């Protein structure tokens, strides 16, 4: 699937490609200090903060891969959850349309994140064969929307907790753009549930 948000997808991929290429090329050198490589028509990527040796750099790549893969796994869970909601028969047509759009965006997130993992030389997480969702509790459209809202709320917190950890700030920025999208999902779902869509100024 081709992402609608090409710049977000491209930023993740280009960041990952460049990081890996640079780490491989620089293996054995004493320092990455001062390295900046042009990306995407003027955007730049600097070395991972704190990396001073090839070993440090490899550790930084491995760490970023783990962070990305945890996000990939969470995105796959969201995709599966929306599928459960879509197939429940509980959603009105207009709501179903919105849900499928949100699912499509989660697919784009998963694809972009997984691509970044592969470009860093890692192996992207696969979807689980089974997700243990509380389907027995989904009896109405409201139940489905609450279930989805809970997942989106959790996703916001997960990205908030992960974004500071990236060694490469460009990955943090790209992940933040995903966070923004999922925060919008949450707000829309809250609105559909009759709740204040944005009940506070800060989230963690």
């Amino acid at each position, binding site marked *: 699937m081709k992402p609608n948000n090409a710049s977000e997808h491209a930023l993740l991929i280009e960041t990952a490609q460049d990081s890996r290429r640079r780490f491989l090329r620089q293996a054995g050198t004493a320092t990455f200090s001062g390295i900046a490589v042009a990306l995407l028509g003027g955007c730049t990527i600097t070395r991972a903060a704190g990396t001073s040796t090839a070993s440090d750099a490899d550790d930084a790549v491995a760490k970023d891969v783990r962070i990305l893969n*945890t996000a990939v796994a969470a995105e796959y869970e969201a995709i599966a959850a929306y599928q459960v909601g879509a197939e429940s028969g509980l959603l009105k047509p207009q709501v179903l349309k919105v849900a499928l759009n949100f699912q499509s965006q989660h697919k784009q997130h998963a694809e972009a994140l997984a691509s970044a993992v592969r470009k860093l030389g890692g192996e992207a997480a696969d979807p689980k064969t089974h997700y243990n969702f*509380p389907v027995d509790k989904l009896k109405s459209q409201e139940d489905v929307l609450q279930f989805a809202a809970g997942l989106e709320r*959790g996703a916001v917190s997960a990205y908030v*907790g992960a974004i500071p950890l990236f060694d490469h700030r460009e990955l943090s920025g790209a992940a933040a753009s995903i966070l923004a999208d999922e925060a919008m999902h949450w707000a829309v779902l809250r609105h559909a549930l009759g709740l204040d869509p944005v009940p506070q100024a800060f989230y963690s």
Partner: protein
Amino acid sequence: MTRIGPWFRVPVCAAVLSLAAAGCGGAPPFAAAAPPPGDPAAGKRVYVRCIGCHSPARNRTGPRHCGLFGRLSGTVPGFDYSAAMKKAAITWNAETLDWFLLDPMEAIPGTSMTFAGVKDARERRNLIAYLATLDADSQACRSVAAKLRKEG
């Protein structure tokens, strides 16, 4: 040694539950240990930060939290742990959770819990106090406990 239910996999000293922490290699049984200091209700609000990956009763991107206290790290059935967590051999209690939750990736390098941590000590205490409530008697965990007991 015995276990409190097949699900929690908690090694405890038989017949000395109230004193078990002193006699079980430092691993307090969740059923007998004193509740950790902290406000569980406030901790439940902090737990919102965990729900992107965790659930009390279900394995998700992270393992379920029912029965966490007294459990050996990396041992929830059906959850695919990182190699680092499998090797960690930590018994989860108030002390080890406080250490881990401060900075998970620093505490156990290689963990797939890629979360910055709960930096505020009071919030950690409250969160840990909430996690301690997720035992077999808690409403959130009853269904899981019953299911796993049925499975033997």
